[in-house]
């Protein structure tokens, strides 16, 4: 009973509290109106930008996917040899593996890069492996936590579809590293479908591992040619990883920008309603003032 009785009083109290506030910054209502207008304008601009980025990413996506499919053939063809030879990475040695992380320079594409960095942090302990990082984003993320393990970093990837020349140049630089590694593992984002991707590892074997594989003699390859083959296979796998990672990034960016435009649209609707309502309130307030003024002066 009390609560029902108390409610009007409460409402009156709240109204009493609200009214002085509104009248006190009557000038401020105009300011908030202008503020809302400014907010609305900036959200509209952001929506325009994200929409454009989405369109750009959509057009790039088909090209990236085509490049990815072609690059998968490259990688699959060179892995065919190792499958047939049943090559396995050598284990039980004190040599460290080398991880190559294929991300890119550009952000605004959801969790593509941080997914890779998280995988590295979760699966590689300090001092267990050396890291080669391709792309500024993963470099800055891993540079904070795993900087002791990093040996090389590459920048300038991701402006366009990666070329085989990119992969070759990176492979060359990795081959020139002084340390001997038990094997090279390439970490990239595997493209599952347009909305999902997951960090995956491709193996690139060392010369010893290739030479030690059980069925390798079937190919009748000279011992001397193995280093060449290994370098070429590394470039192939890198190209594959870079192209697939690029396709993932573009599709992730498309999705991210799609969501961003949607959210911006929602915000625009909300702010538009708020804006209209505030404007109406201001007009009503002014009318009330004028009428009360007029009636007051008419009475006199």
């Amino acid at each position, binding site marked *: 009973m009390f609560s029902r009785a108390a409610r009007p009083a409460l409402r009156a109290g709240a109204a009493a509290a609200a009214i002085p506030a509104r009248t006190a910054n009557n000038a401020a209502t105009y300011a908030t109106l202008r503020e809302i207008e400014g907010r609305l304008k900036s959200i509209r601009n952001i929506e325009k930008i994200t929409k454009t980025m989405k369109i750009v990413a959509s057009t790039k996506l088909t090209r990236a996917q085509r490049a990815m499919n072609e690059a998968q053939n490259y990688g699959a063809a060179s892995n065919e040899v190792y499958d047939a030879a049943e090559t396995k990475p050598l284990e039980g040695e004190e040599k460290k593996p080398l991880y190559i992380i294929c991300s890119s320079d550009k952000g605004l594409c959801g969790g593509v890069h941080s997914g890779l960095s998280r995988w590295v942090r979760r699966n590689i302990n300090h001092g267990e492996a050396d890291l080669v990082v391709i792309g500024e984003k993963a470099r800055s993320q891993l540079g904070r936590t795993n900087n002791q393990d990093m040996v*090389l970093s590459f*920048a*300038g990837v991701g402006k366009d579809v990666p*070329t085989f*020349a*990119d992969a070759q*140049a990176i492979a*060359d630089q990795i081959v020139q590293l002084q340390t001997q590694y038990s094997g090279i593992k390439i970490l990239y984002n595997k493209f599952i479908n347009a909305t999902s991707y997951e960090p995956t590892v491709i193996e690139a074997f060392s010369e010893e591992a290739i030479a030690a594989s059980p069925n390798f003699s079937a190919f009748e390859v000279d011992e001397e040619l193995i280093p*060449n083959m290994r370098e070429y296979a590394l470039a192939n796998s890198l190209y594959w990883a870079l192209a697939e990672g690029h396709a993932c990034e573009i599709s992730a960016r498309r999705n991210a920008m799609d969501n961003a435009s949607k959210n911006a649209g929602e915000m625009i609707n909300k702010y538009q309603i708020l804006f209209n309502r505030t404007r109406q309130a201001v007009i009503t307030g002014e009318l009330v003032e004028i009428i009360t003024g007029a009636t007051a002066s008419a009475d006199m």
Partner: protein
Amino acid sequence: MVFAWKSAGLSYNRYLAIASRVVRRSLKEDKRIAAERRGETDLRFAKWSNGKQGESKNLVDANSSGMASNAGSASS
């Protein structure tokens, strides 16, 4: 088996890159422009030691100069 490019200090990938560049340049004009775009790289790289990033350098230049210095040791 001794390869001329190996004794010149080139790696297999570098050898392939040069060979493909030659092929691309000898194409007809209209095809050449499209093909040459596939051969472009614009990468920079930096060496890390003890958790510190070293100087950032152009990858292609560094590769060719690195191979040139290999040439002396490989041929001797």
